[in-house]
Protein backbone atom coordinates (compact mmCIF):
# COMPACT_ATOMS: atom_id res chain seq x y z
CA UNK A 1 0.00 0.00 0.00
CA UNK A 2 1.86 3.05 -1.21
CA UNK A 3 0.85 6.51 -0.24
CA UNK A 4 2.56 9.85 -0.21
CA UNK A 5 3.76 10.86 3.21
CA UNK A 6 3.85 14.52 2.37
CA UNK A 7 5.71 16.40 5.03
CA UNK A 8 6.02 13.45 7.40
CA UNK A 9 8.47 11.50 5.33
CA UNK A 10 11.47 13.76 5.36
CA UNK A 11 12.95 12.73 8.65
CA UNK A 12 13.77 9.37 10.15
CA UNK A 13 12.42 10.22 13.56
CA UNK A 14 9.03 11.55 12.48
CA UNK A 15 5.74 9.71 12.83
CA UNK A 16 2.92 10.43 10.40
CA UNK A 17 -0.54 11.11 11.80
CA UNK A 18 -1.52 7.54 11.05
CA UNK A 19 1.43 6.18 13.00
CA UNK A 20 3.86 5.32 10.21
CA UNK A 21 7.53 6.10 9.98
CA UNK A 22 7.86 6.72 6.28
CA UNK A 23 11.63 6.63 6.09
CA UNK A 24 11.53 3.04 7.36
CA UNK A 25 8.89 2.18 4.76
CA UNK A 26 10.99 3.76 2.03
CA UNK A 27 13.93 1.67 3.18
CA UNK A 28 11.69 -1.29 2.51
CA UNK A 29 11.30 -0.07 -1.07
CA UNK A 30 15.06 -0.33 -1.52
CA UNK A 31 14.74 -3.96 -0.52
CA UNK A 32 11.72 -4.65 -2.73
CA UNK A 33 13.53 -3.49 -5.85
CA UNK A 34 16.70 -5.49 -5.26
CA UNK A 35 17.81 -9.00 -6.15
CA UNK A 36 15.97 -11.82 -4.43
CA UNK A 37 17.21 -13.76 -1.45
CA UNK A 38 15.53 -16.84 -0.05
CA UNK A 39 16.03 -19.01 3.01
CA UNK A 40 14.86 -22.55 3.66
CA UNK A 41 14.99 -24.59 6.86
CA UNK A 42 14.56 -28.32 7.46
CA UNK A 43 15.12 -30.14 10.74
CA UNK A 44 18.69 -30.91 9.72
CA UNK A 45 19.78 -28.11 7.43
CA UNK A 46 19.36 -24.45 6.49
CA UNK A 47 19.92 -23.18 2.94
CA UNK A 48 20.20 -19.58 1.75
CA UNK A 49 20.14 -18.79 -1.96
CA UNK A 50 20.43 -15.47 -3.69
CA UNK A 51 19.86 -14.03 -7.14
CA UNK A 52 22.89 -11.85 -7.75
CA UNK A 53 21.95 -9.51 -10.61
CA UNK A 54 24.98 -8.83 -12.74
CA UNK A 55 25.41 -5.15 -13.39
CA UNK A 56 28.49 -5.37 -15.58
CA UNK A 57 30.16 -7.93 -17.86
CA UNK A 58 33.46 -6.78 -16.48
CA UNK A 59 32.76 -8.25 -13.04
CA UNK A 60 34.62 -11.48 -12.32
CA UNK A 61 32.14 -14.36 -12.10
CA UNK A 62 32.16 -16.27 -8.84
CA UNK A 63 33.68 -13.41 -6.89
CA UNK A 64 32.13 -10.67 -4.72
CA UNK A 65 30.08 -13.17 -2.76
CA UNK A 66 27.09 -11.70 -0.95
CA UNK A 67 26.45 -14.56 1.43
CA UNK A 68 28.59 -13.99 4.49
CA UNK A 69 29.58 -16.33 7.30
CA UNK A 70 29.23 -15.44 10.95
CA UNK A 71 31.36 -17.50 13.31
CA UNK A 72 31.40 -21.09 12.03
CA UNK A 73 27.77 -22.00 12.33
CA UNK A 74 25.73 -19.17 10.79
CA UNK A 75 25.30 -17.50 7.42
CA UNK A 76 23.81 -14.12 6.52
CA UNK A 77 22.57 -12.84 3.16
CA UNK A 78 20.84 -9.54 2.41
CA UNK A 79 18.51 -8.16 -0.22
CA UNK A 80 18.81 -4.43 -0.73
CA UNK A 81 21.67 -1.99 -0.51
CA UNK A 82 24.82 -4.10 -0.66
CA UNK A 83 27.02 -1.87 1.54
CA UNK A 84 24.32 -1.75 4.22
CA UNK A 85 24.22 -5.54 4.14
CA UNK A 86 27.95 -5.69 4.51
CA UNK A 87 27.92 -3.36 7.48
CA UNK A 88 25.26 -5.43 9.20
CA UNK A 89 27.26 -8.59 8.53
CA UNK A 90 30.28 -6.97 10.16
CA UNK A 91 28.23 -6.10 13.19
CA UNK A 92 26.92 -9.68 13.38
CA UNK A 93 30.49 -10.96 13.35
CA UNK A 94 31.43 -8.57 16.15
CA UNK A 95 28.47 -9.71 18.22
CA UNK A 96 29.38 -13.36 17.68
CA UNK A 97 33.02 -12.75 18.58
CA UNK A 98 32.04 -10.78 21.64
CA UNK A 99 29.72 -13.56 22.79
CA UNK A 100 32.50 -16.11 22.44
CA UNK A 101 34.91 -13.93 24.36
CA UNK A 102 32.48 -13.51 27.25
CA UNK A 103 30.87 -16.92 27.51
CA UNK A 104 33.44 -19.12 25.74
CA UNK A 105 30.69 -20.79 23.72
CA UNK A 106 29.39 -19.96 20.22
CA UNK A 107 26.41 -17.60 20.01
CA UNK A 108 23.00 -19.17 19.48
CA UNK A 109 21.49 -18.13 16.16
CA UNK A 110 18.38 -16.86 17.93
CA UNK A 111 20.54 -14.61 20.12
CA UNK A 112 22.50 -13.45 17.05
CA UNK A 113 19.33 -12.57 15.15
CA UNK A 114 17.99 -10.75 18.20
CA UNK A 115 21.12 -8.62 18.45
CA UNK A 116 21.17 -7.86 14.76
CA UNK A 117 17.53 -6.85 14.88
CA UNK A 118 18.11 -4.59 17.90
CA UNK A 119 20.95 -2.95 15.99
CA UNK A 120 18.79 -2.39 12.91
CA UNK A 121 15.96 -1.01 15.04
CA UNK A 122 18.28 1.50 16.67
CA UNK A 123 18.77 3.14 13.28
CA UNK A 124 15.06 3.93 13.12
CA UNK A 125 15.17 6.12 16.21
CA UNK A 126 17.32 9.08 15.21
CA UNK A 127 17.06 11.65 12.46
CA UNK A 128 20.85 11.84 12.23
CA UNK A 129 20.99 8.40 10.62
CA UNK A 130 18.95 6.54 8.04
CA UNK A 131 17.47 3.04 8.37
CA UNK A 132 19.24 0.02 6.90
CA UNK A 133 18.15 -0.58 3.31
CA UNK A 134 18.31 -4.37 3.64
CA UNK A 135 16.30 -7.36 4.73
CA UNK A 136 18.80 -9.81 6.17
CA UNK A 137 18.22 -13.54 6.20
CA UNK A 138 20.14 -15.31 8.96
CA UNK A 139 20.42 -19.07 9.02
CA UNK A 140 22.38 -21.50 11.12
CA UNK A 141 22.31 -24.05 13.84
CA UNK A 142 24.25 -25.81 16.47
CA UNK A 143 24.70 -29.41 17.39
CA UNK A 144 25.60 -28.45 20.95
CA UNK A 145 22.72 -26.46 22.25
CA UNK A 146 20.01 -28.98 21.39
CA UNK A 147 18.07 -26.31 19.51
CA UNK A 148 18.67 -27.59 15.97
CA UNK A 149 18.35 -25.40 12.88
CA UNK A 150 17.26 -21.76 12.88
CA UNK A 151 16.21 -19.29 10.19
CA UNK A 152 15.31 -15.63 10.73
CA UNK A 153 14.65 -12.63 8.54
CA UNK A 154 15.26 -9.09 9.79
CA UNK A 155 13.43 -6.23 8.11
CA UNK A 156 14.57 -2.59 7.89
CA UNK A 157 12.27 -1.71 10.78
CA UNK A 158 14.11 -4.15 13.01
CA UNK A 159 11.16 -6.52 13.13
CA UNK A 160 12.21 -10.12 12.78
CA UNK A 161 10.58 -13.51 12.78
CA UNK A 162 11.65 -17.13 12.69
CA UNK A 163 10.75 -18.98 9.51
CA UNK A 164 10.64 -22.33 7.80
CA UNK A 165 10.98 -20.49 4.50
CA UNK A 166 11.39 -16.79 3.79
CA UNK A 167 12.12 -14.48 0.91
CA UNK A 168 13.07 -10.88 0.26
CA UNK A 169 13.66 -8.74 -2.81
CA UNK A 170 11.88 -8.29 -6.10
CA UNK A 171 10.94 -11.96 -6.57
CA UNK A 172 9.82 -12.50 -3.01
CA UNK A 173 6.15 -13.04 -3.77
CA UNK A 174 6.85 -15.67 -6.42
CA UNK A 175 9.42 -17.26 -4.16
CA UNK A 176 6.96 -17.35 -1.29
CA UNK A 177 4.42 -19.17 -3.47
CA UNK A 178 7.03 -21.74 -4.43
CA UNK A 179 8.26 -22.16 -0.87
CA UNK A 180 4.74 -22.75 0.41
CA UNK A 181 4.52 -25.86 -1.77
CA UNK A 182 7.40 -27.55 0.05
CA UNK A 183 7.11 -30.04 2.89
CA UNK A 184 10.04 -28.78 4.93
CA UNK A 185 10.06 -31.51 7.52
CA UNK A 186 10.60 -34.19 4.89
CA UNK A 187 13.35 -32.65 2.81
CA UNK A 188 16.90 -33.93 2.86
CA UNK A 189 19.71 -31.40 2.65
CA UNK A 190 20.38 -32.17 -1.02
CA UNK A 191 16.70 -31.73 -1.85
CA UNK A 192 16.53 -28.47 0.05
CA UNK A 193 19.54 -27.12 -1.83
CA UNK A 194 18.10 -28.23 -5.17
CA UNK A 195 14.75 -26.59 -4.39
CA UNK A 196 16.37 -23.35 -3.26
CA UNK A 197 18.38 -23.15 -6.46
CA UNK A 198 15.37 -24.03 -8.60
CA UNK A 199 13.23 -21.38 -6.96
CA UNK A 200 15.83 -18.70 -7.65
CA UNK A 201 15.79 -19.67 -11.30
CA UNK A 202 11.99 -19.74 -11.34
CA UNK A 203 11.54 -16.27 -9.93
CA UNK A 204 14.18 -14.62 -12.05
CA UNK A 205 12.51 -12.35 -14.58
CA UNK A 206 14.32 -12.88 -17.89
CA UNK A 207 12.54 -10.03 -19.57
CA UNK A 208 13.06 -7.32 -17.01
CA UNK A 209 16.43 -8.25 -15.54
CA UNK A 210 19.80 -8.91 -16.98
CA UNK A 211 21.91 -11.91 -16.28
CA UNK A 212 22.24 -13.22 -12.79
CA UNK A 213 24.49 -15.49 -10.82
CA UNK A 214 23.18 -18.00 -8.33
CA UNK A 215 24.79 -17.96 -4.92
CA UNK A 216 24.22 -20.71 -2.38
CA UNK A 217 25.15 -21.25 1.22
CA UNK A 218 24.04 -23.90 3.67
CA UNK A 219 24.68 -25.64 6.94
CA UNK A 220 23.91 -29.28 7.58
CA UNK A 221 23.74 -30.61 11.13
CA UNK A 222 24.15 -34.26 10.19
CA UNK A 223 26.72 -35.85 7.91
CA UNK A 224 24.56 -36.01 4.77
CA UNK A 225 26.81 -33.58 2.92
CA UNK A 226 29.98 -35.03 4.37
CA UNK A 227 31.32 -35.65 7.86
CA UNK A 228 33.82 -32.82 7.46
CA UNK A 229 31.04 -30.34 6.66
CA UNK A 230 28.80 -31.23 9.58
CA UNK A 231 27.72 -28.25 11.64
CA UNK A 232 29.80 -25.75 9.67
CA UNK A 233 28.35 -23.09 7.35
CA UNK A 234 29.36 -23.81 3.76
CA UNK A 235 29.49 -21.45 0.78
CA UNK A 236 29.05 -23.33 -2.48
CA UNK A 237 31.46 -22.67 -5.27
CA UNK A 238 33.21 -24.16 -8.29
CA UNK A 239 32.01 -27.33 -9.97
CA UNK A 240 29.55 -28.25 -7.28
CA UNK A 241 27.77 -24.90 -7.61
CA UNK A 242 27.88 -25.06 -11.41
CA UNK A 243 26.28 -28.49 -11.39
CA UNK A 244 23.49 -27.46 -9.05
CA UNK A 245 22.99 -24.28 -11.05
CA UNK A 246 22.56 -26.24 -14.29
CA UNK A 247 20.18 -28.75 -12.73
CA UNK A 248 18.17 -25.95 -11.19
CA UNK A 249 17.84 -24.09 -14.46
CA UNK A 250 16.62 -27.22 -16.17
CA UNK A 251 14.17 -27.96 -13.39
CA UNK A 252 12.79 -24.41 -13.52
CA UNK A 253 12.41 -24.54 -17.29
CA UNK A 254 10.71 -27.93 -17.10
CA UNK A 255 8.25 -26.59 -14.57
CA UNK A 256 7.60 -23.55 -16.76
CA UNK A 257 6.82 -25.74 -19.74
CA UNK A 258 4.47 -27.87 -17.69
CA UNK A 259 2.53 -24.86 -16.60
CA UNK A 260 2.05 -23.67 -20.14
Amino acid sequence: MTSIGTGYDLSNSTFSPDGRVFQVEYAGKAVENAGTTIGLRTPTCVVIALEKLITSKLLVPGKNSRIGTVDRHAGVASSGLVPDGKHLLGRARDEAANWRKTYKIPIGVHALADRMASYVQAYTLYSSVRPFGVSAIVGGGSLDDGEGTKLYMIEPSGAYYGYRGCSAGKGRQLAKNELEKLDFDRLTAKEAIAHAARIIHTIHDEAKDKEFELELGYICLDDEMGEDKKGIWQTMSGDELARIDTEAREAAEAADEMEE
Partner: protein
Amino acid sequence: MDHSLGIDWKALKKGEVSMGTTIAAVKYDGGVLLAADSRTTTGAYIANRVTDKLTQIYDNIWCCRSGSAADTQAVADILHYYLQMYEAQNGAPPTVRVAANLAAEMCYSNKDNLSAGLIVAGWDAKSGGEVYSIPLGGSIHKQDIAIGGSGSTYIYGYVDTNFRKDMTREEAIDFLKHAIALAMERDGSSGGVIRMAAIDGKSIDRYFFADADIPAAWNAPASAT
Protein backbone atom coordinates in the same frame (compact mmCIF):
# COMPACT_ATOMS: atom_id res chain seq x y z
CA MET B 1 53.29 -9.70 46.69
CA ASP B 2 53.56 -12.33 49.38
CA HIS B 3 52.80 -15.69 47.81
CA SER B 4 53.70 -17.87 50.75
CA LEU B 5 50.17 -18.93 51.56
CA GLY B 6 48.68 -18.32 48.14
CA ILE B 7 46.87 -15.26 49.49
CA ASP B 8 47.73 -11.74 48.47
CA TRP B 9 47.86 -10.30 51.99
CA LYS B 10 48.77 -6.81 50.85
CA ALA B 11 45.66 -6.71 48.67
CA LEU B 12 43.48 -6.66 51.76
CA LYS B 13 42.69 -3.12 52.81
CA LYS B 14 42.67 -1.90 56.38
CA GLY B 15 39.91 -3.56 58.35
CA GLU B 16 38.99 -5.71 55.43
CA VAL B 17 37.71 -9.15 56.20
CA SER B 18 39.39 -12.18 54.74
CA MET B 19 38.20 -15.68 54.31
CA GLY B 20 41.48 -17.48 55.01
CA THR B 21 39.67 -20.60 54.11
CA THR B 22 39.74 -24.10 52.91
CA ILE B 23 37.36 -24.77 50.04
CA ALA B 24 36.91 -27.79 47.81
CA ALA B 25 34.61 -29.22 45.20
CA VAL B 26 34.57 -32.69 43.71
CA LYS B 27 32.70 -34.36 40.87
CA TYR B 28 31.10 -37.61 41.93
CA ASP B 29 28.94 -40.16 40.15
CA GLY B 30 25.79 -38.18 39.37
CA GLY B 31 26.71 -34.67 40.52
CA VAL B 32 29.08 -32.37 42.35
CA LEU B 33 29.83 -31.81 46.01
CA LEU B 34 31.06 -28.47 47.34
CA ALA B 35 32.65 -28.12 50.78
CA ALA B 36 34.16 -25.35 52.88
CA ASP B 37 35.22 -24.42 56.40
CA SER B 38 33.46 -21.54 58.18
CA ARG B 39 36.11 -19.11 59.44
CA THR B 40 36.26 -15.44 58.43
CA THR B 41 39.12 -13.41 59.90
CA THR B 42 40.17 -9.77 60.21
CA GLY B 43 43.81 -10.23 61.03
CA ALA B 44 43.87 -12.55 64.05
CA TYR B 45 40.26 -11.93 65.09
CA ILE B 46 37.68 -14.42 63.87
CA ALA B 47 34.96 -12.12 62.60
CA ASN B 48 32.59 -14.97 61.83
CA ARG B 49 33.12 -18.57 62.99
CA VAL B 50 30.07 -20.00 61.27
CA THR B 51 30.38 -18.44 57.80
CA ASP B 52 28.64 -19.97 54.82
CA LYS B 53 31.19 -19.82 52.02
CA LEU B 54 29.06 -21.83 49.61
CA THR B 55 26.97 -19.44 47.57
CA GLN B 56 24.25 -20.14 45.05
CA ILE B 57 24.68 -18.18 41.85
CA TYR B 58 22.01 -19.95 39.86
CA ASP B 59 19.51 -22.79 40.32
CA ASN B 60 22.01 -25.61 39.99
CA ILE B 61 25.22 -23.60 39.92
CA TRP B 62 27.05 -22.79 43.16
CA CYS B 63 30.45 -21.45 44.05
CA CYS B 64 32.96 -21.74 46.87
CA ARG B 65 34.46 -18.38 47.85
CA SER B 66 37.96 -17.71 49.17
CA GLY B 67 39.97 -14.51 49.57
CA SER B 68 38.41 -11.18 50.38
CA ALA B 69 34.87 -11.63 51.69
CA ALA B 70 33.72 -8.35 50.13
CA ASP B 71 35.27 -9.06 46.75
CA THR B 72 33.87 -12.55 46.48
CA GLN B 73 30.41 -11.49 47.61
CA ALA B 74 30.43 -8.72 45.02
CA VAL B 75 31.56 -11.03 42.25
CA ALA B 76 28.97 -13.64 43.24
CA ASP B 77 26.17 -11.04 43.25
CA ILE B 78 27.14 -9.59 39.87
CA LEU B 79 27.53 -13.10 38.46
CA HIS B 80 24.03 -13.94 39.68
CA TYR B 81 22.72 -10.83 37.92
CA TYR B 82 24.48 -11.69 34.67
CA LEU B 83 23.20 -15.25 34.73
CA GLN B 84 19.62 -14.11 35.23
CA MET B 85 19.99 -11.70 32.30
CA TYR B 86 21.49 -14.54 30.27
CA GLU B 87 18.44 -16.71 30.87
CA ALA B 88 16.01 -13.92 30.09
CA GLN B 89 17.72 -12.94 26.86
CA ASN B 90 18.76 -16.39 25.77
CA GLY B 91 15.61 -18.30 26.55
CA ALA B 92 17.57 -21.09 28.18
CA PRO B 93 19.35 -21.29 31.55
CA PRO B 94 23.13 -20.89 31.56
CA THR B 95 25.32 -23.95 31.73
CA VAL B 96 27.97 -24.36 34.41
CA ARG B 97 30.56 -23.68 31.73
CA VAL B 98 29.02 -20.33 30.87
CA ALA B 99 28.77 -19.33 34.53
CA ALA B 100 32.36 -20.30 35.25
CA ASN B 101 33.68 -18.46 32.20
CA LEU B 102 31.77 -15.34 33.15
CA ALA B 103 33.25 -15.51 36.65
CA ALA B 104 36.72 -15.93 35.19
CA GLU B 105 36.14 -12.99 32.83
CA MET B 106 35.25 -10.80 35.82
CA CYS B 107 38.18 -11.97 37.90
CA TYR B 108 40.67 -11.54 35.07
CA SER B 109 39.51 -8.10 33.94
CA ASN B 110 39.62 -6.81 37.50
CA LYS B 111 42.62 -8.74 38.68
CA ASP B 112 44.41 -5.63 39.93
CA ASN B 113 41.56 -4.79 42.27
CA LEU B 114 40.34 -8.20 43.39
CA SER B 115 41.46 -10.84 45.82
CA ALA B 116 39.13 -13.67 44.93
CA GLY B 117 39.71 -17.39 44.50
CA LEU B 118 36.56 -19.14 43.34
CA ILE B 119 35.52 -22.68 42.64
CA VAL B 120 32.40 -22.74 40.45
CA ALA B 121 30.60 -26.08 40.46
CA GLY B 122 27.17 -27.25 39.45
CA TRP B 123 25.04 -29.53 37.38
CA ASP B 124 23.39 -28.97 34.02
CA ALA B 125 21.45 -31.27 31.72
CA LYS B 126 23.95 -30.99 28.89
CA SER B 127 27.16 -31.96 30.68
CA GLY B 128 26.12 -33.32 34.08
CA GLY B 129 28.27 -32.32 37.03
CA GLU B 130 31.22 -29.99 36.40
CA VAL B 131 33.86 -28.29 38.58
CA TYR B 132 35.84 -25.21 37.51
CA SER B 133 38.66 -23.66 39.52
CA ILE B 134 39.31 -19.93 39.16
CA PRO B 135 42.40 -18.93 41.13
CA LEU B 136 43.69 -15.42 41.86
CA GLY B 137 44.83 -14.35 38.40
CA GLY B 138 41.50 -15.09 36.73
CA SER B 139 42.51 -18.20 34.83
CA ILE B 140 39.97 -20.99 34.55
CA HIS B 141 40.65 -24.70 35.00
CA LYS B 142 38.16 -27.49 34.48
CA GLN B 143 38.91 -30.29 36.91
CA ASP B 144 37.36 -33.37 38.50
CA ILE B 145 38.41 -32.09 41.88
CA ALA B 146 39.45 -28.59 42.95
CA ILE B 147 40.75 -27.26 46.27
CA GLY B 148 41.47 -23.67 47.19
CA GLY B 149 42.13 -21.16 49.93
CA SER B 150 45.01 -20.90 52.37
CA GLY B 151 44.21 -24.26 53.99
CA SER B 152 44.31 -26.16 50.72
CA THR B 153 48.10 -26.18 50.66
CA TYR B 154 48.14 -28.61 53.61
CA ILE B 155 45.95 -31.19 51.95
CA TYR B 156 47.33 -31.55 48.42
CA GLY B 157 49.02 -34.79 49.41
CA TYR B 158 45.89 -36.17 51.06
CA VAL B 159 43.70 -35.24 48.11
CA ASP B 160 46.12 -36.58 45.51
CA THR B 161 46.35 -39.89 47.34
CA ASN B 162 42.69 -40.40 48.21
CA PHE B 163 40.73 -38.96 45.27
CA ARG B 164 38.98 -41.47 43.03
CA LYS B 165 36.75 -40.74 40.02
CA ASP B 166 33.04 -41.62 40.16
CA MET B 167 32.69 -41.96 43.89
CA THR B 168 29.20 -42.21 45.34
CA ARG B 169 27.84 -39.15 47.10
CA GLU B 170 28.48 -40.74 50.51
CA GLU B 171 32.08 -41.53 49.59
CA ALA B 172 32.58 -37.99 48.32
CA ILE B 173 31.17 -36.53 51.53
CA ASP B 174 33.46 -38.69 53.60
CA PHE B 175 36.46 -37.78 51.45
CA LEU B 176 35.94 -34.02 51.57
CA LYS B 177 34.99 -34.08 55.23
CA HIS B 178 38.35 -35.61 56.09
CA ALA B 179 40.19 -33.30 53.71
CA ILE B 180 38.68 -30.11 55.09
CA ALA B 181 39.16 -31.35 58.68
CA LEU B 182 42.86 -31.92 58.08
CA ALA B 183 43.26 -28.45 56.59
CA MET B 184 41.32 -26.83 59.45
CA GLU B 185 43.63 -28.55 61.89
CA ARG B 186 46.81 -27.08 60.40
CA ASP B 187 45.74 -23.74 58.89
CA GLY B 188 45.15 -20.93 61.37
CA SER B 189 42.89 -19.15 58.91
CA SER B 190 40.56 -22.15 58.55
CA GLY B 191 38.30 -23.64 61.18
CA GLY B 192 34.83 -23.71 62.69
CA VAL B 193 32.34 -26.06 61.12
CA ILE B 194 32.27 -27.89 57.78
CA ARG B 195 29.54 -26.96 55.36
CA MET B 196 28.73 -28.87 52.18
CA ALA B 197 26.31 -28.72 49.28
CA ALA B 198 25.54 -31.60 46.93
CA ILE B 199 24.00 -30.86 43.50
CA ASP B 200 22.78 -33.70 41.32
CA GLY B 201 20.17 -32.19 39.05
CA LYS B 202 17.32 -33.59 41.12
CA SER B 203 17.87 -31.69 44.35
CA ILE B 204 20.33 -29.59 46.28
CA ASP B 205 21.21 -30.96 49.71
CA ARG B 206 23.08 -28.97 52.33
CA TYR B 207 25.21 -30.69 54.97
CA PHE B 208 26.60 -29.40 58.24
CA PHE B 209 29.25 -31.02 60.40
CA ALA B 210 30.43 -29.72 63.78
CA ASP B 211 32.31 -30.84 66.87
CA ALA B 212 32.23 -34.60 67.22
CA ASP B 213 31.08 -35.08 63.64
CA ILE B 214 34.32 -33.59 62.33
CA PRO B 215 36.94 -36.35 62.08
CA ALA B 216 39.94 -35.85 64.37
CA ALA B 217 42.98 -37.04 62.51
CA TRP B 218 45.17 -37.43 65.55
CA ASN B 219 42.70 -39.78 67.22
CA ALA B 220 41.98 -42.14 64.40
CA PRO B 221 43.49 -42.61 60.99
CA ALA B 222 41.86 -40.82 58.07
CA SER B 223 39.82 -43.06 55.75
CA ALA B 224 42.12 -45.49 54.02
CA THR B 225 43.36 -45.17 50.46
